[in-house]
């Protein structure tokens, strides 16, 4: 089912026209209401009337997380305080949090997007839906909550914590839907085991999981243990909150509410827009937001866009899985390489442990990339009694890496448990070129 076929299944021409009209309006709006944007546009000698079609977006300046921090707390707010009915704050690991104010209309748009998302998952007004995201400054809890209400299903504002009571309600009330982080879903499954509650005892059938990276393997495990179908939900408070994009029944990418949030993929180094299908940094422009609109906000998330009509019938553009963060990018022989790409290849081969190290060096003015991986003990069998057999395994990985990275990498096999376990992505890289 589709909540708003008018928008979700709009023809490309109509959508582009709508986006162009809305872009002009939002640029005019921030030009007159946000000094930060007026200064930036004036520096570039751009007037609102220069922006008429969606293609004109390329002329506009980018907005970064730093811009939001530098203008703490309300510097980027466009609406007067009297129009703001809610404020969320995103946690910053350093310095000030990002403060985002929403007008009544913003909350309405957000609820509409959430309703589109839940409908795509197959949720109807007959469902009882439990929201187990944090309620508070984080957008997850209240964002999902308002969406369930807007759809007309019954919302259970469970929040996080008190997992045993939550499970009792899931069982006794026959709760059918669940929104939470994938890791909390797994924690629920563990607690179920502990309490002796079987998946046959509960009626969960749909899960909306997001707010943190998760893998297909996690999805399988959650689905198996909770007996539901798990869908990805994506969002960020700087743009709106959860439901910026959502999976449909086809689960081949997440549909973006592009009539409200215009996506672009850019090369994070040159800032040039990339053609559809290529992986780069995801950038959003809010087309209708009143409280705190953003122009070309750089999410730092890396993914690709999939245009074209989906098998579900929606025409809205889809985004692929988040493949990493642009902060982790390496440039090797002019090619952008992300440790997460190497990770996905290593994880796809059971012969290797899920640990790896990228060693980048420069030899005779040429960049070299070496990928170190550990062979798993159980995969080191009697056939590996000659170097030829080891070389063959190294070549198999090298070929897969080459097809994913587009540059050659030399594979070095290491003994089990010899690569340091690392915290965070940058710890996977040794770049000797900086020395």
């Amino acid at each position, binding site marked *: 089912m589709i909540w708003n076929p008018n928008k979700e299944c709009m023809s490309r021409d109509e959508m582009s026209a709508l986006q162009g009209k809305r872009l002009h309006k939002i640029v005019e709006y921030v030009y007159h209401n946000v000094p930060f944007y007026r200064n930036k546009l004036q520096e570039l000698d751009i007037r609102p009337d220069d922006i008429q079609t969606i293609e004109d977006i390329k002329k506009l300046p980018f907005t970064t997380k730093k811009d939001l921090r530098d203008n703490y707390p309300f510097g980027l707010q466009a609406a007067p305080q009297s129009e703001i009915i809610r404020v969320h704050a995103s946690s910053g690991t350093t310095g000030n949090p990002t403060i985002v104010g929403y007008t009544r209309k913003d909350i309405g748009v957000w609820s509409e997007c959430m309703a589109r998302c839940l409908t795509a998952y197959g949720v109807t007004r007959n469902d009882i839906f439990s929201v187990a995201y944090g309620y508070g400054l984080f957008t997850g809890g209240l964002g999902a909550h308002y969406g369930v209400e807007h759809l007309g299903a019954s919302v259970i504002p469970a929040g996080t914590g008190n997992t045993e009571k939550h499970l009792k309600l899931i069982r006794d009330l026959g709760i059918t839907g669940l929104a939470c982080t994938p890791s909390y879903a797994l924690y629920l499954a563990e607690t179920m085991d502990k309490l002796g509650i079987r998946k046959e005892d509960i009626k969960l059938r749909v899960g909306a999981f997001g707010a943190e990276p998760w893998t297909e393997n996690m999805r399988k495990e959650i689905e198996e243990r909770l007996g539901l179908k798990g869908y990805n939900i994506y969002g960020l408070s700087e743009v709106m909150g959860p439901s910026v994009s959502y999976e449909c029944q086809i689960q081949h990418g997440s549909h973006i509410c592009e009539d409200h949030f215009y996506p672009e993929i850019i090369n994070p180094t040159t800032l040039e827009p990339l053609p559809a299908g290529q992986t780069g940094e995801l950038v959003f422009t809010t087309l209708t937001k009143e409280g705190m609109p953003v122009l070309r906000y750089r999410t730092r998330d890396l993914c690709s866009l999939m245009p074209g009509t989906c098998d579900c019938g929606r025409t809205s553009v889809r985004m692929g899985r988040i493949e990493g963060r642009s902060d982790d990018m390496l440039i090797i022989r002019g090619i952008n390489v992300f440790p997460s790409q190497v990770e996905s290849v290593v994880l796809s081969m059971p012969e290797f442990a899920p640990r790896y190290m990228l060693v980048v060096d420069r030899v005779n003015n040429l960049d070299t990339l070496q990928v170190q991986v550990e*062979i798993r*003990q159980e995969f*080191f*069998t*009697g*056939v*590996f*009694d*000659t*170097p030829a057999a*080891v*070389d063959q395994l190294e070549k198999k990985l090298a070929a897969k890496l080459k097809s994913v990275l587009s540059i050659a990498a030399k594979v*070095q*096999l*290491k*003994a*089990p*448990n*010899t690569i340091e376990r690392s915290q965070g992505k940058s710890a996977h890289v040794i770049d000797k070129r900086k020395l």
Partner: protein
Amino acid sequence: MTVHQLSIFIENRSGTLIKVLEALKQAGIQIIASTIADTAEYGIYRLICSEPMRACEELKKANVAVALSDVFAIEIDDQPGRAADAVKTFSEAGISIAYMYSFLLRGKGILVFRTDDNGKAASVITANNLKSISESDLSGLA
């Protein structure tokens, strides 16, 4: 008819070989013969020892990449030309030898080798009355 050889993945950096040897020492395993096939970055350390199954388990506990491979060990007279004669027998039967090493034990030469066709090699050994060494022979020798 075959014996168990330990095949061990060893990186080319200091401390890796001694780690393996120390683990074998701790377990009271005696090495009978060994050889390393080395490359620029790593080596495959092949060894024949007493109690290969237990040795393999002990090395796994020490986080060593180790596996058991089936190899032949045949006894030949300690005289010039006997190795050539033995290898010729296999090559005439169309059997390829992947690698081979040898050692002397109590006045006899022992050839250790892996073939691409163990079944065929076993029948060649029987047909030509070659003396193959069994696992129990080796533990007795050690």
